[in-house]
């Protein structure tokens, strides 16, 4: 395997991805990602110098609109999906000591 994923890299990716992995999952992920990157490295066979990265197939322009609310007050409906709520708001664990 050409791409060897270090413990540090997996740790870092876990932080970026906001995932908590068990040790077994980390080992699995290191192997998986290494294998995928080996495969993806196939792209290096292609000469892409001077080729613009294409994020969208068609020319896209931002769609502007007036900043007006059109869908009414849906607070109650929306809060129904909240895992926890309090006083008409989403309840989350304490963030400021």
């Amino acid at each position, binding site marked *: 395997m050409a791409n060897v994923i270090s413990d540090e890299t997996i740790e870092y*990716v876990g932080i970026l991805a906001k995932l*908590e992995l068990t040790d077994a999952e980390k080992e699995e992920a290191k192997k998986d990602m290494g294998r995928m*990157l080996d495969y*993806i490295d196939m792209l290096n066979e292609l000469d892409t110098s001077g080729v613009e990265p294409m994020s969208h197939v068609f020319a896209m322009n931002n*769609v502007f609109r007036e900043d007006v609310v059109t869908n009414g007050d849906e607070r109650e409906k*929306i809060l*129904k*999906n909240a*895992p926890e709520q309090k006083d008409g708001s989403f309840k989350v664990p304490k963030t400021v000591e």
Partner: protein
Amino acid sequence: MSDILEMTAVQLGGKIKSREVGVAEAARAALGQIRAAEPVVHAYVTVDEAGALKRAEEVQKRIDAGELTGPLAGVPVAIKDNMCTEGMLTTCSSKILYNFVPTYTAEAVRNLEKAGAVILGKTNMDEFAMGSTTETSAFGVTKNPWNPDHVPGGSSGGSCAAVAANECFYALGSDTGGSIRQPSSFCGVTGIKPTYGTVSRYGLIAYGSSLDQIGPIAKDVTDCAAILEVIASYDRKDSTSIPRDDCNFTSALQDDVKGMRIGIPRDYLGEGLDGEVKAAILAAARILEEKGAVVEEFDLSLVEYAIPAYYVIASAEASSNLSRFDGVKYGLRAKEYEGLHNMYKRSRSEGFGPEVKRRIMLGSFVLSSGYYDAYYLKALRTKALIKKAFDKAFEKYDVILGPASPSTAPKLGESLSDPLKMYLGDIYTISVNLAGLPGMTVPCGKDSRGLPIGLQLIGDCFKEKNIIRAGYAFERSRTYESPEITRNAQTGENNMYTKENLTYVAGDSKQAAGYKTDSIPGDSTDRITDDAVGSRTVGNAESRTGSTADIMSEGNAGSAAESTGKEAR
């Protein structure tokens, strides 16, 4: 009843219009078939019996009042479970959205509703549409109606299986890398992935936003053209929506391919392609040739690079799109955690399955500083080259013809052990998404094991009509075949499938209406949840369907929990 289920969506719409079939009668026929076939197929995550029957009455009234006159008015439909439906559970087949009830409806589904559609329920899929087998669902595996030992394909496997098993008259799917075309091929049905931007993505739970596109799945090309005509719309709520004035797709339903230039990429016929699939594809090409098309082989190039480019781009977009699932606003929140960040991490780690985690991590990695240029930008440059290769091909050809998948449906459990091998199965479909092109699968035969083979037709951007015309002309040469399960279930005998085969019941008729408990997949204990969650049940369970209803009532919620427990690794 049996006659009704055999009809295509457009045929049924015609009978409803002429008052030969009632809307409620059609809905009851589909719901009866759902009860009969679900224990084997498990195409649905949610079936809304009560809602569908109520809606059927409303639609009938509006048809009678002359307000609904379209070809699909009153026809029952199934929706892939990644499209938001107001008031109806929408899970993306993920534990993290196990109880999510949207407050709004996806634009494509709204367009169907405006045309008088009756929604039967939501279909199973690979979790967040990431997969090619519908085995990564947190709510159990969908089986191929042609042979329940095989996968239906994915990620729109539930939608395709439901159409094949006559558990709906048509369905909506979504296609990010082949998720409409590949399962259509495996299930022997027809599906279109339209040009990017043709159908609004508003309300489609995003996976790879630059690639995702909603499309129709049905029994034939006529249905698909009619459905696409209804769901295509310019929508300001989707910034990638494209205004088009050429969406009269049914005008292309002509049995005439004289002079049509059809190219077969040699790259699609080489190593890795199953011999029987190849023979069926080439036989289909000959039929179009006999009808007057000019068919030749050519070199498309770059085909093998589409897969690595796709997995970089799709994973990168997924890692960003799926960051919204954090246990705050909806879905699963971990029960134990220390502080906010740990709550995010625990909720996500408990809520996402292994394939989703794999792609989120890969995506986070390729977007991270130091790797962004080498992986992400390289993939976007490759995408530009692939687009150019197609542009060149479409200077010479009206339609590109090839297989939808290198093989017919694999056996259950064969694919997930080797993700890379599974990804390679997407080789003929993926580049179409990268280039934003329309593509369609039309059934073109079966292999020696009796599994369907699908023909893929690819058009240039905005040229759906070319593939619809070619697909329609080809389809004229054969008759639609449905799997055995459609015939067994119709007679209500169900001889082929015994109770021991029941692996999942999409709800328990004993619990019926007012059903309030719902188990989190993979949890050993049931949990009482919000009232609104109760929709994951076969609504009200009156014995409308005779013996088939009995079969359902003997399945139990325990077996559902058990099977999902096993699935949710």
